[in-house]
């Protein structure tokens, strides 16, 4: 099962909004509503910021939002802040009980 496809990098200025895409197939993102997004700062463990496509865990800023259309999920970060600069990973449940991550996207805040 191949990794989900994410852009290698995205950038945006402070205060702006950016969207990171995550493309899978009809067997994973297209079939299930189990898409998650994780934020990872250098040297740190990943942190869950979106689960089940669009839900935020307690304590996560509402500047983070998720959506899905067909085989592609998206993470939008509004009002970019310096601390948002990190790597972002999507993940999805897939066939046969397996799970899969995207390749990761490096967000640069200009």
């Amino acid at each position, binding site marked *: 099962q191949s990794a989900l496809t994410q852009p290698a990098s995205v950038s945006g200025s402070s205060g702006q909004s950016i969207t990171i895409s995550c493309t899978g197939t009809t067997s994973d993102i297209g079939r299930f509503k189990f898409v998650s997004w994780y934020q990872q700062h250098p040297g740190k463990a990943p942190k869950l910021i979106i689960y089940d496509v669009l839900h935020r865990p307690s304590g996560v800023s509402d500047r983070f939002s998720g959506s899905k259309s067909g085989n592609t999920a998206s993470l939008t970060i509004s009002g970019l802040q310096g601390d948002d600069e990190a790597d972002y990973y999507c*993940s999805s449940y897939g066939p046969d009980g397996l799970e899969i991550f*995207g390749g990761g996207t490096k967000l640069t805040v200009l």
Partner: protein
Amino acid sequence: EVQLLQSGSEVKKPGESLRISCSASGYSFTDFWISWVRQVPGKGLEWMGRIDPSDSYTNYSPSFQGQVTISVDRSVTTAYLQWTSLKASDSAIYYCARRLSSGRGYSYGSWGQGTLVTVS
């Protein structure tokens, strides 16, 4: 407070065996699946597999099936990731992660601090 405390860094030689651990506290251990995730430094996250601590049922990514073993010891609320014969390509940071919800979903809300394994 949910805590996943992983064992410390390891330096091993190719062909050696290794078991790293993930000690869980602050919740009912058997109610939440645990997954292991690999990250080669500078690279992305790879899901290796998961275990249901209530019955030790496991699922493995095809990429890791037969290469590692995931297990738990309920008496000490600890999950393990084990290799019988390490390769240089096993050098990476390994994270354990606990499922967010006990009954559904495939997201991980709590993560260990990571264990760096170096095989050289």
